[in-house]
């Protein structure tokens, strides 16, 4: 009996020793990962300056090359549709455990909406410690670690969290769901070997900021931690081929609207279990129109391969668009198409063209004294109004609250087609005519003919403010 007890005691002791040794190893490993990643974490700050004011925005960033290229989530840029030249005074903020953080001047390189990353580069050359992402998918149950920064209110302190790979979600953007918690937007996700597998991405704008002006004390990643990350495979091509100030990314397009076929619709077309999209609208003169694609055509394959399945039919058009967007202008893409059930599939080959200019890429002009900002007309402005692509005019981008233009019920998105009876042919001409008219006839109303978003025309009569209308002011 005695020996038996001794044996038991020995076994129990051994278990205790190995257990605590394993935990000690694990803790050391976590510290190693944390120390490895920490030097590559920075914050990116810029001043968003528009006609009506300015604001500082700060986001988490990751150093991705040894010459200091920093990638940061586009979340804080794109949803606001901020034009590039309104983003000024970029700074890279390097946190410090012992002293104040350091701010380095930097230059914006551009954004890549295909990977939802924007890039910034330090102005002073220096050698940096970069993160190397790897295109690896963890297995369900694998331990994961996430290292990121806390907001300015917590001194940009680095933090690490622990999680377990749960499952992969299908959709236009692949996402990995974890059990446990990840650090904030822009933080890096690593496996137990310290390999960088992905990045925490896109949440709501407030959650993505490291210095939320509305609530500087807020620590969203602590009290409402993310549980999804984007695997590196999705954004690695973007890091390998980043945009630069003189080489922006040109996104290709095909020029048609699509809708994912529901299960019932697919069966009707004899396409059971074949992810397919239906062409809902073809934009005149687009690659789709030139190739002869037409409304109600059903696309079943791209370049001879099935369309990747989403979790929902609604996701299929985005999956197709993202696939196209990762090709290059001038590339050819072949769709397998039927129009009616029972049709023999035909092959339609399109040549990709650059996507039309987006509103945030358009030049702007601030009509300061009457308080409105206009920009060049772009494709979406004519498309939404069912107007010809050749329509000319300028579009109201912003209104100063309480100013004369707003009082006259001019609204954002109004398309100005005429000013004082003269057709508006370009932004430059509008600017010149506007300045002439305000200088020569400051007391006269400014009469604008506008087309609303719903296609209705309206005459807007802006009465100049009395005090500003004095000559010489």
């Amino acid at each position, binding site marked *: 009996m005695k020996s038996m007890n001794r044996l038991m005691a020995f076994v129990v002791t051994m278990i205790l020793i190995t257990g605590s040794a394993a935990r000690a190893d694990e803790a050391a490993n976590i510290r190693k990962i944390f120390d490895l990643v920490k030097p590559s974490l920075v914050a990116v700050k810029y001043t968003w300056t528009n006609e009506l004011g300015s604001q500082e925005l700060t986001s988490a960033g990751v150093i991705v090359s040894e010459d200091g290229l920093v990638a940061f989530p586009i979340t804080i840029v794109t949803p606001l549709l901020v034009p590039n030249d309104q983003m000024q005074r970029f700074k890279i903020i390097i946190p410090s455990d012992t002293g104040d953080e350091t701010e380095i001047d930097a230059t914006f390189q551009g954004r890549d909406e295909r990977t939802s990353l924007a890039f910034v580069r330090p102005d002073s050359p220096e050698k940096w410690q970069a993160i190397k992402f790897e295109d690896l998918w963890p297995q369900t149950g694998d331990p994961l670690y996430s290292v990121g920064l806390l907001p300015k209110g917590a001194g940009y302190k680095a933090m690490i969290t622990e999680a377990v790979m749960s499952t992969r979600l299908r959709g236009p953007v692949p996402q990995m769901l974890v059990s446990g918690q990840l650090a904030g937007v822009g933080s890096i996700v690593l496996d137990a070997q310290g390999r960088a597998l992905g990045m925490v991405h896109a949440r709501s704008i407030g959650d993505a900021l490291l210095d939320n002006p509305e609530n500087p004390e807020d620590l969203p990643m602590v009290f409402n931690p993310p549980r999804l990350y984007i695997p590196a495979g999705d954004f690695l091509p973007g890091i390998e081929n980043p945009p630069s100030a003189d080489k922006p990314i040109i996104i290709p397009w095909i020029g048609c609207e699509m809708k994912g076929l*529901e299960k*019932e*619709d697919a*069966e009707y077309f004899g396409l059971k279990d074949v992810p397919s999209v239906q062409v809902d609208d073809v934009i005149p003169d687009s690659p789709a129109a030139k190739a002869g694609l037409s409304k109600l055509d059903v696309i079943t394959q791209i370049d001879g391969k099935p369309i990747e399945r989403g979790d929902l039919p609604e996701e299929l058009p985005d999956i197709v668009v993202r696939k196209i967007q990762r090709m290059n202008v001038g590339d050819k893409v072949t769709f397998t198409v039927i129009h009616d059930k029972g049709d023999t599939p035909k092959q339609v080959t399109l040549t990709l063209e650059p996507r039309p200019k987006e509103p945030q890429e358009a030049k702007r002009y601030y009509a300061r004294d009457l308080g409105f900002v206009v920009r060049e007309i772009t494709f979406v402005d004519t498309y939404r109004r069912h107007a010809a692509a050749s329509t000319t005019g300028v579009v109201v981008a912003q209104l100063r609250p309480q100013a004369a233009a707003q009082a006259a019920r001019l609204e954002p998105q109004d398309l100005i087609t005429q000013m004082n009876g003269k057709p508006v042919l370009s932004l430059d001409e509008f600017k010149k005519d506007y300045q002439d008219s305000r200088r020569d006839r400051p007391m006269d109303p400014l009469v604008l003919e506008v087309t609303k978003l719903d296609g209705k025309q309206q*005459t807007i009569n802006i009465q100049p403010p009395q005090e500003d209308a004095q000559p010489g002011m």
Partner: protein
Amino acid sequence: MDRIVLRNLACWLALLMAGCQTGPYPAATPQRVAAVTAAISPAVVRVDIAQAHYENGKQSLIRGNGSGVIIDQQGRILTNYHVAGRAIEIYVTLFSEERVPAKLIGDDHWTDLAIIQMDMDTVKKQHIQFSSAELGNSSAVVVGQDVMAFGTPFGLARTVTRGSVSNTDRTFFDEPKTLDIDGYETGDFSNWIQMDVPINPGNSGGPLVDLNAKVVGINTRGGGQNLNFAIPIDTAKPVIAAILASASPARKGRVDRSDLGFELLPMHQLESYYNIDINRGVLIDNVDHIGPYADAGGQAQDILLAINGAPTNVRFPEEMAAVRQRIASLPIGQDVQLTIKRGKETKTLIAKTSLLQGFLGDEEGFAQWGVSLRPVTRPFAVAQQMDQVAGVWITSVADGEPVERAHLQYGDVILSVNGVPVTDMAHFQSMYDQTLAAKLDSVALEVERDREVFTSILKVKEYAPSSDSNE
């Protein structure tokens, strides 16, 4: 002779003698107010209604109440559209406190008026007495004159309020949003009487009377404070005539009007810009892309100078309703001569008027598909920037039933059914009936949503509600 009739006679006599004052604007002496009250009250009714309404693809009833005024001895009652319009069940409560069923003769949302008919069999069978009110002339109403409002605010028993006319020509044209009643346009063709007589919910449809006990308006909008509005009785008279002339047992009465398919703007502060004399013409601000004026070659920013030679001058918003009314009363489907100024040129365009339609057509339910629909009207097609006026559009869907299962939603336009283009609601109804009769498993719809057109398959058999649900 019946007691009530005698009492009415006595009232009128009292009215004649009250203060012995004659003329159009008698003073509101206590005797006079009491006499007017006694004369009008027996012609005022409380109106309780139920309106059909579709929600989640199913019909349900909305109940409400308001006021009305009996306008003749046949038991016809004038009230507001927003009280009794589209009603499928009506009861009126008379001065004698008797409750009598009634039915809708006809309605007109543009002027917010409706006429209902008391069930005269009930009235005779139960020997119910009532009197009718005399309609006056709202053109003679002047600012400052005393007036009285009758009605049943908040469903209370007969109530009389008193005050004076604040404005005889009130327009709502300047409001950023056009007026509507549950989405039905209203107030385009007349100005309003504004008065400080308190009007509360439930007063709607009751008469506004002068101190000669003549009806000069129908109380319509107010908030119980001192800013309240009535429809002038001169606006109501032709509407009453048109509804009564067009009503039949099969179809409710209506007012047909002409439309040219444009929107107008007063010229005030635009005269020098358009280089035109003060008080001349009206600006055509917007031209519907489908419509008579577009067909005639009209453009936005044309200035309309005359219709069939008669000038159309609108300098101020108050003058707008009269010109709209002129257009509305043109013969429908006939050529009119429009004199316009475009730039420096003056020219004549010939346009063929069309029947005025509202944005909303009549709503109908299709229970086996779990959907309610309205026809695509010209204004709907214009607002949605559609290429043509065709199809029916979805106003609500029932959860779990075929249309909802096919992921269709509010605002989607059904363009075709099994490849056959939908022309109007009756045509749609017949195709719907055919698919049910043929017991089809599935139906292919062509659907327009915003600019996009797609195919949608309804699994009719699989997802239809059980047959005992109400159609």
